[in-house]
């Protein structure tokens, strides 16, 4: 699997290169600035890009912008975004085109090499890898609004893992249940939340994420609040 990597700090870049190579990835380019990343993405056509949000020369969200631009040029280009902090705002921008192949993780997730590499593979395959922190933020917002469609605690647990983008098999091994049990849970969840059922793993993730995000995106006009 061919990877383009963008990370401005040498230590982290070097560590990521070593780790990915150890797991059998081929590093096409490890760059440190936004313009270099744009060039690498355009010329090398990697299977997946692993990108740090904040890159020189501007030290703003240059990495994120480059990734979004590259995805506009090549829809569905798998991008895994890494950051020292996760924001729903960025998650939403990454997911906006609905094409899948998006990951958004805290840099600390690299500590757990197996999990991290699994996330890279999932994104490369067109799936989704959302940081648990993003999901728990979304959930805590929704919890204020309404009881999550009357989900049982177990179903909530399953839904969180689905929202992170994990497959039924991964959820089953994580919760130590059979894959069939997970499939039953998920179909219950989708029925309770009124979400469209789909065989496509990624559609499923995006549907759950969209549901969690709904409190924010669908707005009734609030004219009486205009100052």
């Amino acid at each position, binding site marked *: 699997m061919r990877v383009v990597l963008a990370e401005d700090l040498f230590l982290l870049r070097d560590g990521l290169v070593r780790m990915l190579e150890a797991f059998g990835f081929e590093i096409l380019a490890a760059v440190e600035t936004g313009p270099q990343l744009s060039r690498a993405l355009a010329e090398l056509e990697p299977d997946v890009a692993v990108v740090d949000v904040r890159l020189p020369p501007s*030290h*703003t969200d240059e990495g994120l912008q480059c990734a979004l631009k590259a995805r506009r040029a090549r829809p569905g280009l798998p991008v895994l975004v890494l950051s020292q*902090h996760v924001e729903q705002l960025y998650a939403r921008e990454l997911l906006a085109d609905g094409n899948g192949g998006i990951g958004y993780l805290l840099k600390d997730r690299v*500590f757990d090499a197996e999990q991290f590499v699994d996330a890279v593979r999932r994104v490369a395959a067109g799936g989704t890898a959302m940081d648990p922190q993003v999901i728990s933020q979304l959930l805590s917002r929704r919890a204020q609004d309404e009881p999550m469609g009357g989900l049982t605690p177990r179903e909530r647990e399953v839904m969180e893992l689905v929202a992170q983008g994990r497959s039924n098999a991964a959820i089953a091994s994580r919760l130590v249940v059979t894959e069939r049990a997970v499939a039953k849970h998920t179909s219950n969840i989708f029925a309770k939340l009124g979400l469209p059922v789909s065989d496509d793993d990624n559609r499923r993730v995006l549907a759950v994420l969209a549901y969690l995000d709904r409190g*924010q995106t669908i707005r009734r006009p609030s004219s*009486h*609040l*205009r*100052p």
Partner: protein
Amino acid sequence: MIVTRIRSAFLAGVRGLALMLMAVTASVVLFTFTVVSLALIPVGIGLFATPAVLTLLRSYAGRRRLLAAEWSDVPVPSPYRPMPADLRGGFVGQVERCALMLKDPATGRDLLWLLVDMTAGCVSALLPAALFLYPVESLVLAAGLWRLFTEGGAYWYGPVAVHSQGTALLAVVFGLAVFAGSLRFNPALLRAHFALSRSLLGPTREMTLARRVDRLTETRHDAVDASAAELRRIERDLHDGAQARLVAMGMNLGTIEALVEKDPAQAKKLLAMARASSAEALTELRDLVRGIHPPVLAERGLGDAVRALALRLPVETEVTVNLAGRAGAPVESAAYFAVGEVLTNAVKHSGADRIHADVQHTDGMLRISVTDNGQGGAAFAAGSGLSGIERRLGTFDGVLAVSSPAGGPTTVTMEIPCALS
């Protein structure tokens, strides 16, 4: 067009008349009172009377400042020195208050203004009224009443000697000319009257500068205190948090080194612990960084930082942003934390189920308003969160206004003068 002309000329006339009446009554009476009570200070009675009379004078002058702004768009800032908040009560406090008021140069200027108001001010206020009413007399003359006026010889109406119907009509022509003049000049004449008042009621350049220096001294103290407190907080958080965790991690690693051959199972357990504490240290550092300078603010600027903040709130929050560029980093940061505090207040205390934050930059002012549909009654007492926000904005000459009637909605508005890049 002509109707509005006539209306504004008439209005200026009526207002001038009202000002003239005030000048010859209230201004005279107040001046007399003030002089008498000042004269009685040595006797002691004046000590009690003077603050009361001067307070009355100040509210009278303040009323006139308001009228200047309302009637002629002549802004007259209030020039008085602020009274200290810790004035004692009783006799001593009274003497102190009296002394403070008398020391204030604005008091003398107020008195001087009374004198000017009852003379030049009175005349200049009467002018628009006179110009508007004088032509009426020419109409009265032309209507045939010139016969009554001219029994003892010709009657002078302005430059016209009236002694027949013909000359009376000539008087009307002159009267109409005067009327046309009043239509043209009345509002300006009233403005001139207020401009005269402003020369004494407004602060001198020196007063303005003195006040500015006071304000700068105060806000500089606040800024220094705030940044010192901030640094102490950061130091403590690092010392007790991330630093302590890294120490523990180092110790763990040392133990692991010793155990790795003897007891690999135990070493593995310790390794997992070390990894967990490094993750915790990172979480703590992340929260600390968010408290110093939120990453979204650095990456995206104020608008998106407020949006990201709104997404974390448990109450539905709508954010509208209209910024053409980015403000300077210190202003952005102050504005961000101020908004954050206001939003947190709204979530905690208002009971609102909906909040709207609006971020704008117009004519050199960053304006941020936060409105919630909660129960209102937000307190703006000293020591409350709001006064802390005001102090924080004060460093940048920013101001904060709260409108929170009981029953809501509450609107907190912040303004910071700044340029966008």
